[in-house]
């Protein structure tokens, strides 16, 4: 231990400095490790050179600032770095594949993308919609209740950070199988059941108490999530665009508001950017998870909106990952300023926090406001009225330096351009050839049984017991809820009516196909995008914007990075093909545990609009005697399907996407929905045609009969494959017979009439051999779907 390098600073008793100039290369690495800086040797070398040049010893505060600013979590190094893939150089994944797609699409309704805490699109009557989805994997794995709760807390503050009023939350969770054998669980890894229940409790606790409806989400089970819990928290907000204040200038005050600062969440960003190991057990990592207090956040929200409406601030930002270090630093950088902060002014939960701890703590429910001097007093009065603690802690300065003091003694003084000149590296990416093979098994004689089993598979089965613990009605603007119809069928997308004086609605959906990621990351990503868009189209959504959230393994390993490159390439291709721009995103890398890497998982969130909520379409069948159409073509694509999984296989024939054709089909379907011809519509996803048909029928207890011979397909010669293939871009559509002619004319042969709705309360499907291959009562199908994860079966 190079203890001789650490020197107690004489001017202030709780700061040490590091004699970095005389540190050897080995010692540099040791310093990074001992101070938990998470910096590489190359980065430490750059820091050493800087401090040698300015002829100073860095304080611990300064080293922590650099560490935070350069962390993967704060600056997304991997997405910005150069990558060599297939002998070609990619100049940053984010720029090349994500932001370029948005730029090239150049949608006039994008108000602000990628720059701020959340993406903003225009809505109606001068309002904009802000959306952000966060990954919160690490904290959720260590402490599922607190991790899930603070995940929501953080993303809600991101929405407040763009001056928007949060109106809905979304939650997507990836956990291990609930029946996983306890004895096989490695030390330090929590059982999926514990994670599942506590995450749900955390979400329910936080968003319900905050009064924000949780309207959309998913729960996905996969063995790779046992060691790498995957948690996504999303929030949607609404703001009057003329109140979007971002014009901070030198002299403006930093006012810190909300919760007090403690040791919780210290170095969370460093912890988020490293692999979980045995050592990440409770003792080591639990302090990196913050403590949640939704009521403080509720009050903070009220105050924020009052300040916005009275236009008293020049900027605001969430204090999340990296704490004050990120909030102050990034704000100063964004407005081309420097900053001063007096750390002893920060309200603390308890005394004895060291200056560096104060500056990087990630304690929850804290927001940073930038207030022009003339408004300072008014703003502090508003906070007082709302019972929110608020303290001016510093100012923006003209001089481009970051100067921190503690009880008026300097503890950090850094050149802003140095801190934000983030070192990048060139990384190597490779792609392994897939070794997956297609299984070979006979078609079962009885297909009703496999359908029952599929409906009961955890990834398909009803999550009603969990979803009903989330308030999806608060605010009274939820038009399509997670469950629709008398028998609570699963809706494809949520619809909100956010403005009292407008019929315009907001459609929110998601797509995620991790199992395909085990076979092919490109088609996994393409499928996730198509699923999110398809779900949105199904209810009548149009003008769709996308959010990307990557959960991946360690990008230092070239094949992990290679699969990430492929997924990003799909994002570019499909986003361009559908003309659906990305407006925001977030990545979580290094998701590896002693059980191995996470399955590459891309969550796509899609936000659309409907011109009039009275024309939205839900998934439950409406009446007997109506016609049933299928849109799209079925291919023999069962690789990664739930049907193969049911039979114990993964397979290789992952669903592909024919985006230009699908786009035309979606366009026509949107027109049909707009003209009121579509009575119900449901997307085909996990479990394919048979599962989608069963869900539509049992949601309203209206029977359904159809013929597989009429299903348009390419070389699908088996009944089970036609029933359960998961080919993309397909939807089932119910149409009244009087509209048959108009509907078929509009859809231009892309739709096939396959059957009709009946009074029998049964699902009956005829196979290509003309035999009745599925004959099941709706109540039996419904019970199969509900029983797996729900204790009460109605």
């Amino acid at each position, binding site marked *: 231990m190079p203890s001789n390098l650490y020197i107690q600073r004489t001017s202030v008793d709780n700061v040490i400095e590091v004699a970095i100039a005389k540190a050897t290369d080995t010692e540099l690495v040791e310093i990074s490790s001992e101070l938990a800086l998470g910096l590489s040797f190359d980065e430490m070398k750059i820091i050493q050179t800087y401090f040698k040049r300015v002829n100073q010893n860095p304080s611990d505060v300064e080293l922590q600032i650099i560490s935070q600013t350069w962390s993967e979590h704060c600056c997304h190094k991997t997405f910005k770095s150069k990558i060599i893939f297939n002998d070609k150089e990619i100049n940053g994944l984010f720029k090349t594949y994500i932001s370029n797609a948005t730029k090239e699409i150049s949608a006039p309704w994008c108000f602000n993308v990628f720059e701020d805490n959340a993406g903003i699109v225009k809505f109606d009557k001068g309002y904009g919609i802000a959306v952000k989805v966060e990954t919160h994997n690490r904290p959720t794995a260590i402490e599922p209740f607190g991790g899930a709760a603070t995940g929501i807390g953080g993303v809600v503050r991101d929405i407040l950070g763009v001056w928007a009023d949060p109106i809905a939350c979304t939650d997507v969770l990836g956990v291990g199988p609930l029946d996983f054998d306890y004895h096989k669980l490695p030390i330090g890894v929590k059982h999926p059941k514990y994670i599942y229940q506590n995450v749900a409790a955390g979400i*329910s606790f936080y968003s*319900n*108490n*905050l*009064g924000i409806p949780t309207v959309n989400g998913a729960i996905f089970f996969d063995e790779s999530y046992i060691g790498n819990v995957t948690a996504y928290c999303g929030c949607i907000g609404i703001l009057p665009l003329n109140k979007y204040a971002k014009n901070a200038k030198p002299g403006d005050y930093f006012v810190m508001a909300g919760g007090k600062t403690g040791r919780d969440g210290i170095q969370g960003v460093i912890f988020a950017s490293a692999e979980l190991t045995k050592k990440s057990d409770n003792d080591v990592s639990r302090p990196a998870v913050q403590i949640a*207090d*939704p*009521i403080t956040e*509720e*009050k903070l929200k009220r105050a924020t909106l009052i300040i916005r409406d009275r236009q008293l601030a020049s900027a605001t930002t969430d204090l999340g990952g990296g704490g004050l270090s990120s909030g102050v630093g990034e704000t100063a950088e964004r407005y081309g300023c420097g900053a001063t902060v007096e750390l002893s002014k920060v309200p603390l939960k308890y005394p004895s926090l060291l200056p560096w701890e104060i500056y990087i703590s990630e304690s929850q429910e804290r927001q940073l406001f930038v207030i022009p001097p003339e408004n300072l007093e008014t703003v502090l009065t508003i906070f007082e*009225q*709302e*019972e929110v603690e608020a303290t001016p802690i510093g100012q923006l300065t003209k001089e481009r330096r970051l100067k921190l003091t503690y009880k008026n003694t300097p503890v950090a003084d850094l050149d802003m351009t140095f801190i934000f000149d983030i070192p990048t590296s060139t990384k190597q990416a490779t792609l392994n050839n897939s070794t997956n093979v297609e299984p070979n098994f006979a078609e079962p004689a009885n297909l009703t049984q496999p359908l029952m089993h599929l409906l009961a598979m955890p990834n398909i089965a009803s999550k009603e017991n969990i979803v*009903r*613990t*989330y*308030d*999806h*009605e*608060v*605010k*009274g*603007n*939820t*038009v*399509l*809820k997670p*469950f*629709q*119809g*008398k028998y*609570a069928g699963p809706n494809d997308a949520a619809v909100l*009516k956010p403005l*009292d004086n407008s019929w315009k609605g907001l459609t929110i959906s998601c797509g995620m196909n991790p199992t395909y990621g085990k076979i092919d990351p490109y088609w996994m990503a393409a499928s996730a995008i198509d699923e999110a868009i398809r779900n949105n189209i199904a209810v009548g959504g149009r003008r769709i914007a996308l959010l990307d959230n990557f959960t991946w393994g360690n990008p230092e390993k070239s094949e992990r990075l290679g699969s990430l490159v492929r997924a990003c390439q799909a994002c570019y291709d499909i986003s361009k093909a559908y003309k659906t721009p990305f407006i925001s995103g977030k990545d979580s890398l290094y998701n590896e545990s002693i059980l191995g890497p996470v399955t590459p998982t891309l969550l796509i969130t899609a936000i659309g609009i409907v011109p009039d*909520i*009275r024309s*939205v*379409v*839900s998934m*439950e069948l*409406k009446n007997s005697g109506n016609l049933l159409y299928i849109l799209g073509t079925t291919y023999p694509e069962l690789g990664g399907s739930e049907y193969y999984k049911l039979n114990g296989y993964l397979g290789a024939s992952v669903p592909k996407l024919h985006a230009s054709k699908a786009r035309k089909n979606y366009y026509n379907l949107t027109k049909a929905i707009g003209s009121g011809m579509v009575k119900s519509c449901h997307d085909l996803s996990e479990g394919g045609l048979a599962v989608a048909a069963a869900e539509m029928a049992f949601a*309203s207890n209206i029977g359904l009969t159809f013929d597989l011979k009429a299903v348009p397909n390419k070389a699908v010669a088996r009944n089970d494959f036609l029933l359960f293939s998961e080919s993309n871009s397909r939807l089932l559509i119910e149409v009244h017979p009087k509209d048959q002619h108009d509907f078929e004319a509009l859809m231009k042969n892309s739709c096939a009439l396959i059957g009709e709705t009946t009074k029998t309360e049964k699902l009956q499907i005829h196979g290509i051999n003309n035999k009745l291959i599925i004959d099941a009562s709706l109540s039996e199908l419904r019970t199969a779907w509900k029983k797996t994860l729900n*204790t*009460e079966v109605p």
Partner: protein
Amino acid sequence: MKTQDIKVCIMRAGGTNCDFETARAFRILGAQTEIKHVNELVKNNSLMDYNIIVLSGGSSFGDYVRAGAIFARTLNAKLGKQMKQFIDENRPLLGICNGFQILVEYGLLPGFEGPSQQPEAALTTNIPQGFKCQWIYLKNENKGKCLFTNQIPQNKILHLPIAHSEGRLLFSKEKEKQTLQKLIDNDMIVFRYCNEDGTTTDPNGTYHNIAGICNKEGTIFGLMPHPERAIYFWQEPTWTQKQQHTSPYSDGKLIFENILNSIAKKQ
């Protein structure tokens, strides 16, 4: 008194969160509606400016100690005098969900002999345990005492959502039967949970399927379901199944309309 002259105050504190939609319900019916923080009412001494006070849903003060307990104590401590005058003048007071919990914790409901020093009932943890967001049916069992429902036909079934984890009404075990008898004798039971066909059911283990009660005068009313979330037809979970919508509104509106009519008539 004309509806447009009626002044409604939705009172809030940290953690209140159904105030906007509750205000909207009164506003679309034409009443003057304001959302006021308790601190503002104290500062301006303005409680008596209003014709009706509404405690809306939410998780006031985080529902720490017991749901509604801290708000009830705060209200009593900060505005006790004005509250007493307001109630003595028989001005109506409505508590929805967390608001109902506050009224019970304050001792205003059931309040057989007027406001009680200690709560005479509890709204406690659901059985089965946990938060539940779901649409349920209610039967109006009030015989005409309650100012909030006296124009709604007796035994009419309403469709409203619940969203709570502490909605089980409970009386002390040894006095349970007498309490129920007193509630019946004084016409204080307002809503009971039922199925679509009117048969009784119980989503949260509540005593005697009770979802809402009023005081002896019928001026103070608390209920667990959320009428403010059932104002428009498109808020119903089954609206997509209906062929036509004869009314743009939904059942929750009846309650707000009813109380505004009662106030308009009285003064």
